[in-house]
């Protein structure tokens, strides 16, 4: 697959003093295209893929069984009850939605900021967004109890002669999340169109050609099409940028607009958005580190990508830490006994363990990212990312449970504990997410071929890049 000609290998792209490059040296237009597409077109599926897929598929089946049981018996199989009626459903919803945000950040915001290092990780990060949003959507859907009436959330003329209450953040959420899912899908698909054409043209098997041919819609790389395409992609990025910020802002409104102590706070939108990007980058690293090793993609997903993701994680993690500080400060500074009690209860009440575990995961553990040695070390980054994912889950657990379980009236206090079905549903969605990722890396190009080629063409050494004659 490597360049065989006698011409000197090209220099690695965008490398500076001590900074790893965004693409390894020695690639031509052809070798980039072949290296990425051959992962998809290879006849043999690696054994590791089958093992991983089988395991995550089993978890997906567990998810389906849980959903069956939930529909058969009712939401009472979960641990939710008054006063904690949100429980795992909303915790997991917010967790998954947040994870999705890094995909949009990488594909849209970093595109607008001309960050070249986004190119090799944007495709699978967008896939991550889609699958995370799909999983997130499951929770409020089944939390409704009668999910077959989900369309009552949408404004449509009906015989009940009523309309959704547009003053409610819960209705905003329906619009925000469904728009987000749709736009992420469109962005992902449009970005993939040229690569689907590459797969169509490289495939040998008739059926594979037909299937990719249908998905590629007859894309043929016309300069007219490319011009419209680039403009459209840029504007979609510009639309997705405020969208992604709005989605987690609206999610935080679900809490902040309520008058519950510990929720009713203006810091929520920025602090939720930062937390979303923080956990999303952790998931990007959790996916990227095994992928690059397993598929030998270290030249495309280089240490530079890992380092930059770690830096974004550190920066957003510090914002999240600041959010915790402000929350605690405002709890005491507010002068409201209820707010103060909510803080004390969070820190020293029945759920204190979860609170301090989250402080460890989200505030203390990430401080190791200040050290270059850690940012350069994929196994360490992987470990820190897992800790962050756990920490962000705990954060939502603490926010949802501690505020709900003890509000203004001590007579209505209660405790919450999840049931086994809460856990099977949560673990099931994790399995479903990874099962979809496994299918994605096997069936679709996980790195954008055309963008990698454009990056190659853009690099200063373009004169030395010779397309290999066949």
């Amino acid at each position: 697959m490597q360049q065989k000609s006698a011409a000197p290998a090209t220099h690695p792209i965008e490398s500076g003093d001590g900074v790893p490059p965004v693409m390894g040296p020695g690639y031509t237009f052809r070798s980039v295209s072949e290296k990425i597409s051959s992962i998809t077109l290879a006849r043999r599926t690696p054994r590791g893929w089958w093992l991983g897929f089988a395991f995550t598929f089993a978890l997906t089946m567990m998810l389906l069984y849980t959903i069956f049981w939930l529909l058969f018996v009712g939401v009472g199989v979960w641990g939710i009850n008054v006063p904690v009626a949100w429980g795992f459903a909303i915790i997991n919803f917010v967790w998954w939605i947040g994870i999705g945000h890094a995909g949009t950040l990488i594909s849209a915001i970093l595109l607008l900021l001309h960050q070249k290092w986004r190119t090799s990780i944007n495709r699978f990060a967008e896939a991550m967004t889609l699958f995370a949003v799909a999983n997130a959507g499951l929770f409020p859907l089944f939390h409704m109890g009668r999910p077959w009436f989900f369309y009552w959330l949408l404004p449509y003329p009906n015989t009940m002669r009523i309309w959704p209450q547009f003053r409610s953040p819960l209705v905003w959420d329906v619009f925000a999340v469904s728009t987000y899912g749709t736009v992420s899908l469109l962005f992902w698909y449009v970005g993939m169109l040229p690569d689907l054409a590459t797969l169509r043209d490289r495939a040998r098997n008739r059926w594979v050609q037909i299937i990719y041919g249908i998905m590629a819609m007859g894309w043929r790389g016309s300069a007219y099409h490319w011009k419209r395409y680039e403009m459209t992609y840029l504007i979609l990025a510009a639309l997705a940028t405020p969208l992604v910020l709005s989605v987690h802002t609206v999610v935080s409104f679900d809490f902040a607009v309520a008058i519950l102590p510990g929720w009713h706070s203006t810091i929520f939108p920025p602090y939720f958005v930062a937390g979303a990007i923080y956990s999303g980058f952790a998931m990007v690293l959790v996916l990227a580190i095994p992928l690059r090793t397993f598929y030998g993609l270290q030249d495309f997903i280089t240490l530079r990508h890992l380092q930059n993701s770690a830096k974004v994680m550190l920066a957003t993690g510090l914002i999240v830490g600041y959010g915790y500080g402000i929350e605690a400060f405002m709890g005491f500074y507010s002068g409201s006994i209820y707010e103060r009690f909510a803080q004390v209860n969070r820190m020293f009440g029945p759920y204190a363990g979860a609170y301090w575990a989250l402080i460890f995961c989200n505030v203390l553990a990430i401080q190791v990212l200040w050290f270059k040695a850690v940012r350069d070390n994929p196994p360490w980054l992987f470990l820190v990312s897992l800790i962050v994912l756990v920490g962000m889950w705990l954060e939502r657990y603490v926010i949802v449970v501690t505020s709900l379980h003890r509000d203004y009236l001590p007579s209505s206090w209660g405790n919450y504990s999840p049931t086994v079905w809460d856990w099977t549903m949560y673990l099931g969605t994790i399995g479903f997410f990874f099962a979809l990722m496994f299918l994605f890396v096997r069936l679709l190009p996980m790195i954008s071929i055309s963008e990698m080629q454009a990056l190659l063409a853009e690099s200063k050494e373009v004169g030395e890049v010779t397309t290999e004659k066949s």
Partner: protein
Amino acid sequence: MDMNPGLYGLVAEFDDPTALVQATRSAREAGYRRMDAYAPFPIEGLPEALGFHRTKMPMLILIGGIVGALSGFALQYYCAVISYPINVAGRPLNSWPSWIPVTFELTVLIASLTAVFGLLALCGLPMPYHPLFHVPRFNRATRDAFFLCIEATDPHFERTATRDFLAGLHPREVSEVPQ
């Protein structure tokens, strides 16, 4: 009248993007207009070399966004003020600040849908069949080859003269594209 029955055009293959841009410029200088260039990735200056300077996409998307914003707000106004007015803690029926999030989401949604479907419509996609797909080496246009096609409908097109002209641009190969 069809001067070249059964012929879609002539296509020349080049090895790198710079050669393609130069060839396209020369073809335009030679007076050819009905032509298209094909590449595996967007090449700076190539659409301009073809004489394609502006796309309608931004205008389309802007219109989509405005339609989305107006219809989003109108939807909420209709629901909350006209069809189903209810008094929530004495707030005005037209409580527009709380309608901003949904208005914004619909702006983005309709603009994005317009962007994607507009792109497909302007590019004439999906188009599963295209004469160029007959050219055996054209499947490399999505990998590592660069093509310039002068179409037979161009007023200056003349089978042998155009073929000679393309051959003069030092392509790797010139082939005929059957209809």
